[in-house]
């Protein structure tokens, strides 16, 4: 059961990040500040991918709540790092980013760490 929750949490987190990254890059650079924030909020309301990203974020948070209820904190928080692995794979495949050796090795180390957490 715990790995199901970890999978849901990580998939939702990564999906949310990918949708945000995709849509925000398409929107161009945003400014910070009061006027920038209002424009940002307006933009969120008009872009369905950003709304979907927020829904995914909520899913991810609720799964984290379920996970910390059933499993120790010392498992739940480190396990959430599995998102780095999926994110790296999808950044390469979906966003067509260049994944360097350092990032690939890092993702593999995280994967090994998460595998060890279960024990």
């Amino acid at each position, binding site marked *: 059961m715990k790995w199901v929750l970890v999978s849901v949490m990580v998939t939702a987190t990564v999906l949310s990040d990918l949708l945000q990254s995709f849509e925000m890059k398409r929107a161009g650079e945003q400014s910070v500040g009061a006027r920038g924030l209002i424009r940002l909020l307006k933009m969120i309301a008009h872009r369905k991918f950003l709304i979907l990203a927020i829904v995914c974020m909520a899913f991810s948070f609720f799964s984290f709540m379920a996970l910390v209820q059933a499993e120790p904190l010392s498992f*739940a928080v480190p396990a959430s*790092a599995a998102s780095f692995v999926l994110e790296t794979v999808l950044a390469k495949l979906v966003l067509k980013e260049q994944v360097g050796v350092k990032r690939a090795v890092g993702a593999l*180390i995280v994967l090994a760490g998460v595998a060890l957490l279960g024990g």
Partner: protein
Amino acid sequence: MWLRTYSILLLFIALKAAGNLSLAWGMQHLERNASANPLYYVRAIFDPFVALGIVMLIVALLTRMVLLSLADLSFVLPVTAVGYVLAALLGKVVLHEVVTTQRWIGTILIFAGAALVSSTTQITTQKTTGESPK
């Protein structure tokens, strides 16, 4: 300037850890939910410890935004990976969780791997408008 950056960095790490701890404490003391009923989680938000945890996590998120205005993402992300180790420590000390040697090794590997992955964060794809990667 660096003192301010490091103070905000410490504040962020502390808020995130305390927020997770409060959330975990609150959730662990709630009546268990057998079904995946989303309403259960909406109700859980009103538990004082869960609510406190969520507020701290939101403030942590805002602190992180301030931090990102002072320091590069490629500095912030690897440094904040220490949060994984901190969560394991707090779980052991405060929540009296059993953390096996294998889990410690896993946590350290996650910290190292996350720091490595996030230290490479930069823009590698072409954007429509933008500044060059730092």
